Every structure is written in C-alpha cells, then in structure tokens.
C-alpha cells in the first residue's frame, strides 16, 4: 500500500518554509540589530523556543521539513557582568 504520508508532507513544504519562530534569548536586555530579519523577545531562560501553547497535532508532526540554520545578531544594551 502506498504511503500517503510522504505525499502530504511535500504538499506542505511550501507553506512551512517561511514560518517564523520566536526566539527566547537567554541574555538580559537584548535588542535585535537592524540587519536581522527576525523578531525576538527579551525573555530569559530557556534558550529554546517555547511551544507550550502549541498543540502537537498529527498534521504538524507530518509536515516535512529540513533542519534550518539561523544566525542572529543581538545588540546588548547593558554590559554583561
């Protein structure tokens, strides 16, 4: 039997490639530099993305995605101690 999950994934690639994620930066008082195309918040720990308000639906899991690297430059308002 043909695995229909694969087909579904490729259908959804285009719609997911541009999705942005909110970065929770683990540094105090950071402000994003102008050259960065993303948005950030100044929330502290954890450094990873907070997805506690998302649902883990099958559709989300099935979406075919590739690992994606991002380089983000943040401007620190205050010096680190």
């Amino acid at each position: 039997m043909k695995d229909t999950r694969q087909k579904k994934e490729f259908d959804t690639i285009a719609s997911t490639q541009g999705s942005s994620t909110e970065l929770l930066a683990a540094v105090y008082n950071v402000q994003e530099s102008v050259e960065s195309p993303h948005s950030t918040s100044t929330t502290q720990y954890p450094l990873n993305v907070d997805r506690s308000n998302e649902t883990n639906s099958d559709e989300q899991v099935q979406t075919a995605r590739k690992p994606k690297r991002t380089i983000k430059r943040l401007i620190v308002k205050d010096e680190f101690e």
Partner: protein
Amino acid sequence: MNRLTGIINKHNSPRVFQGDILRDVTYYQSVHYSGKEVILNYIDFPFVYILSQDCDLTQENDHNMKARVDDKGRLALNQNREPIYEVDKTLISVMLAPIYNFEIFRKGEHLQDLYCLSDNDKKTYTAQKIGSDQKKPLIGNNNPRFHYLQFKQSCPIPPSIIDFKHYFTMSLDEIKQLRATQYICTVGALFKNDISQRFASYLSRVGIPVIVES
C-alpha cells in the same frame, strides 16, 4: 522482512528516555559575545532521537541531587549541619541525533537549509543523492552510518533516517524542559537497543587510511 520500527510507546513519565523522539528542537551551535553584540548560531531540527544510555538517564533521574540519608532513614548532615547531596550520577549533556525525512534525504536536499542562510543565496548546497541501487541497503540498515525508521501508518512520523555522523549533545536541563511540549513517542525497547548498538559500533569504528603503492 518487516522494516517497521516496532512498537511505539508513549510514556507519561516526566523524565527523558533513550529512544524518545522530540520535534522542533533548537540546537545552539555557538553563542559568541563580541562588543555589544551577541551572535547566535542555531539549527532548528524538525525531529531528534535521544541516543544516551537509558541507565544513565534513569540513574540521573532517580539518584542525582538527592539528599543522603543514613541507615535509619535520617537526613545525613555535614559539619555545618547542612544536607549532603549526591551528585555522582549527574549528566552534563544528552546525546541526540537528527532524524531526516527519508524522501528529502534521498534527494540530497536535507542539509540545504543548513548552509543557505538567506533568500539571496542562490548557491546549491547538496548532499549525496541516493540512487535506487543504494536505497535497499539503507532501508535494510546495511550502511553503518544510517538507521532507517519506518513507523506504522497510525504513527504520524513518515519514513525517516537517522544519520549517526550528525550526532550532537544538548544539556539535560534543556532536554527536560523541551520534553514537556515536544515529545512525540518512544521507539520500542528491542528497536532502540538495535539503534544504540549500531550507533556505538559506528562511533567506535577505526578509520583505515588508504595505502597507495608508489
């Protein structure tokens, strides 16, 4: 031969298990501080597999940072009358491996977005394409570097592949926090042992140089 990755469990334990599969994990490859700038270099992995030994994870969970008690069950105290904590089982990090979508992997496109950083970058970043003659050995797990995963139709994860060469580590605290929201399922016992053994074998391989006779 049945290639299904066996029984997929979903446990409710708050601790991390070997064989757990998590989704949407952000791995910070480097964090540099220069002047008034912090440069974050990170990778978003759609799926990751927990490789660390389960006995280590169990002991860390069961024994680490527990206050010592004496034979009579009383709290042991140091000379300052403070508790004595056992930290012998502490884990600093957890070993993980990325899980790649098999169809994207076959096309050699699974690493493309690791190097293409902007829409203006028109270069092509490709991995080796997998021809039809190479597909069967991969699915049969005859290539030591990779482990093919195929789940039942009822499982929402499509056919995928683990690349042992791309293993990485993350702090246990980070993984514990992620697990609460990003956990999908755990690979069945027999199958995760197979993955563990194959990973250990791959990691301990001996690189043999090619000897060219002059």
